[in-house]
Each structure stands twice: as structure tokens, then as C-alpha cells.
């Protein structure tokens, strides 16, 4: 019902042939930004509409879940159209497949995070600000922190810990997974080898998929609990 909304209009126009790496960075930077921003703005703009729906005999949970699925589906569609078609044309199937999958997961993660940030504050400006902060954190700051840690603690064997730390950022998780599939992990040096040992295996792949799903489920679940108790 909400999926009819024309989110696909915002699909990423992507005719890049410059290579997968460029595309990867574009996806990992812009997809989160676009999804988190549009989702937050959409939720705030439809506050009155949600109110109208609440006066009808429907469960709150149902409203929230349908908005989530409506937005997710439209983002997935727009991602598939924008990035999927060029990927399938220009890249080998195995790599483009995994890239599409991760792109979809990343979109869902950020829709879910946007739901959380828009339920946390009533004020639209604050909510959008929070969303942008979260995006900045995941897209840029987190990498900076990790780099900082790496340099500070470079005397210690922290490679294993690095694997653990990546679990705290869905973007990095996705990036590493794709890089490994591109066989450029050699560029990442010794840490890269550790990553390959862990994420390269099917077990590691499975774990990281589970982690990404947690990134989707947990923020949305928290927002759902809060929405059920929220005053509108």
C-alpha cells in the first residue's frame, strides 16, 4: 500500500563503468545516506497520516511494519534498477550478485536505523540531524576510529580484534565482504590476510550475514517497541 509511493523516483542513477571499486564506494557512501535521509524525512512527513491510520481499527505494530516494508521494498527496487542493471551488465555474475545482495542488506540496515532515529525524537530537525550524525559515524567516523586504533596499537597483535570490531559497523562489514570477493584483499596487508581467513570461509560469510541481519532487526525492533507506547 505504501510501496506505491514514488520512491523509485529517487533511484540512484548509475551509469558508471569506471570499475567495480568506484561503484563499491559509491554504493557504500550514498546508499546509506539516501536511505537514512529519505526514510527519516518520510516518517516525519507522514506523522499526521500515521495518526489518521491510528484512528482506524488497525494494530500499531501492523502500521509500523507495513511502513517499514513499504519503504524497504521501494529502496530495494530503486537500488536494483539503479545499481543492479549496470552491475549485471558490466561485472562478472558472482561479484555483482554478492554486491547486489549486500547493497540490499545495507539499504535495509539504514532504513531500520532511520526508523530508530525518527522514533527517538519528536522534533523533525533533531531527528534528521541524528540520522545524518549516524550516517557520518558509520560511513566516515567509524573508519577513522578504526584507523586510529590500528596506528595506536600497531605494536600489539590486534588483527583478531579487528575482525570483531568490524561487526560494529554494517558498512565495513559489507565493504570487507565485497573486497574479499574482488580478490583485492592483498591490498589490505596482513590484516587483510586475517580477514580473508575469517570472512573468506563460508562460516565467516554466514556469520557476517547474520550480523547484518541483526543490524536490520535490532534497531527496527527497538523502534517498534517504542512506537507501540508512543503518544501521537
Amino acid at each position, binding site marked *: *500500500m505504501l510501496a506505491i*509511493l*514514488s520512491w523509485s523516483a529517487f533511484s540512484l542513477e548509475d551509469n558508471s563503468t569506471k570499475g567495480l571499486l568506484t561503484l563499491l564506494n559509491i554504493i557504500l557512501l550514498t546508499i546509506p545516506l539516501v536511505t537514512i535521509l529519505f526514510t527519516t524525512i518520510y516518517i516525519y512527513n*507522514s506523522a*499526521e*497520516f500515521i*495518526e*489518521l*491510520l*491510528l*484512528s*482506524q*481499527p*488497525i*494494530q*500499531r505494530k501492523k502500521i509500523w511494519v507495513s511502513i517499514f516494508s513499504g519503504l524497504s521494498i521501494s529502496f530495494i527496487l530503486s537500488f536494483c534498477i539503479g545499481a543492479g542493471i549496470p552491475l549485471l551488465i558490466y561485472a562478472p555474475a558472482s561479484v555483482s550478485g554478492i554486491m547486489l545482495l549486500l547493497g540490499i542488506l545495507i539499504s535495509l540496515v539504514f532504513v531500520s536505523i532511520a526508523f530508530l532515529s525518527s522514533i527517538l525524537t519528536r522534533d523533525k530537525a533533531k531527528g534528521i540531524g541524528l540520522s545524518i550524525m549516524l550516517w557520518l559515524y558509520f560511513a566516515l567516523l567509524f573508519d577513522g576510529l578504526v584507523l586510529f586504533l590500528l596506528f595506536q596499537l600497531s605494536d600489539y597483535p590486534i588483527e583478531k580484534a579487528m575482525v570483531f570490531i568490524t561487526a560494529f559497523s554494517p558498512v565495513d562489514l559489507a565493504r570487507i565482504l565485497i573486497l574479499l570477493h574482488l580478490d583485492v584483499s592483498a591490498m589490505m596487508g596482513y590484516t587483510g590476510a586475517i580477514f580473508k581467513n575469517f570472512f573468506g570461509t563460508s562460516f565467516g560469510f554466514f556469520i557476517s550475514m547474520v550480523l547484518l541481519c541483526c543490524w536490520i532487526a535490532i534497531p527496527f525492533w527497538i523502534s517498534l517497541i517504542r512506537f507501540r*507506547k508512543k*503518544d*501521537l
Partner: protein
Amino acid sequence: MILIEHISKRFNKLQVLNNINLSCNKGECIALIGPNGCGKTTLIKCILGMVIPNEGSIKVNGETISNSFLYRKNIGYMPQIGRYPENMTIGQIFEMIKEIRQSTEPLDENLLVQFQLHQLFDKRMSTLSGGTTQKVSAALAFLFNPNILILDEPTAGLDPLAAEILKEKIIAEKNNGKLILITSHLLSELDDLITQLIFMQDGKIEFHHTINELKKNTGEEKISKAIASILKGKSPQTKSNNAQP
């Protein structure tokens, strides 16, 4: 039909509703009046389950409403400012709400016809004026023949003709034995509509009278004058009433 017991609601430190008790029965048309910010809309939202009160319970048709949603089938709600998805047409809105309600009972399209909304069915919500949006809200509230109608400032923004149509509809539904709750600031509009009057202030119910009682006690014919005389009578004792016009 609606039984409200010891409802209290705080938004952070602000006490919006303070231990409200109220019972409303069918066939009544109750006006909820009071200064801005006295908690009228919050009370209505409590009944609709949009705002969850800190204390107390609300029963609609004998059932407590907490964690329930099906009771809203019996309620038609017309919001103060109706906002709808901007890129949907009026027709789509009606279709959607019908789908949500899945009502098997015959629809009451009386208002829809009288407001001539059929002609506007393919207009987008973003192009509508405030008054037309209000008409849509009103038509939606009455569409499913609910037993309880909650109208938040129904005539605000409507042109005199439409307001008159709406008033007639309200009177007709009242005579059909439905419970109608209206909030309004236009006391003169309410004169021939309502049977009971609730005056709220600072989250409390100041008084709850039937109109006949009110008129008898004050000796006034018009509701507005009757209320004015009550407030004047009170103002020496309570300070807060001095702010009243």
C-alpha cells in the same frame, strides 16, 4: 458507551489531564469546550488510543481499550487538521480506508454526495484547499456508520454552506441514537446541536451539565451567555478564570 475513569496524563512535567472521570451514553451530543491547551484534544486522543494515559482506564462499549484496537471500528474520528499522503487522490484515500476497515455494513455516503466529493475524486490531496480536506475528513468519519463520532473542531475552515450540511448530519446522527463528541470554540454554532456540555480547564473538568440544566440554572437562552455567566460567577473564587474572555 464511553466510560473514563481517573485518567491522568503527563507530558514530561506538564500535567495535561488530571484525574478525569466521564461517562457518555448513546443518543447524546456532547460538546467539549475550554481554553486552548486545556487537554481537549489529548482527552480525545486518549479515547482513540493515540495517547496512552499514565493512569486510569477507558472503556468503550464496556471493554477496556488498552492493547486493543478493534473497538475503533465503532468510532469515527474527524481530526482537527486532516493530513493525507500528498500524492494520493481523494478516491484512493477512500478506497484505502475502506480496505482497512473491511466493513461489511452498508456505507453512509450521504456526506460524500452532499459535499459533491465525487467530482473531485481524481484530485490529488496536495492540490486541495483546507476546507476541502476538512470535507474529506468529515465524509470519512461518517462513512462507516460508527456508533461513536468524535469530531475535533468540525466546522473550522468549512464554508457556511458545508458547515450547515455537517450540522444537519450531526443532528440526524444524534437522533439515530449515536454518541457524538464535539470540541469547538464556536459556541454559537453549537446551540441547536448539543445536549450536554463539558467545560475543561487545566486538565480538569470544571463542569458537566446537560444543556437544559445549564439554561435553567443561569436563566440564559444562549449557551455562550450561559457559560459566560457561570464563568463570571466563578471568577472571584478562582484566579485562573480571570484570563477567560
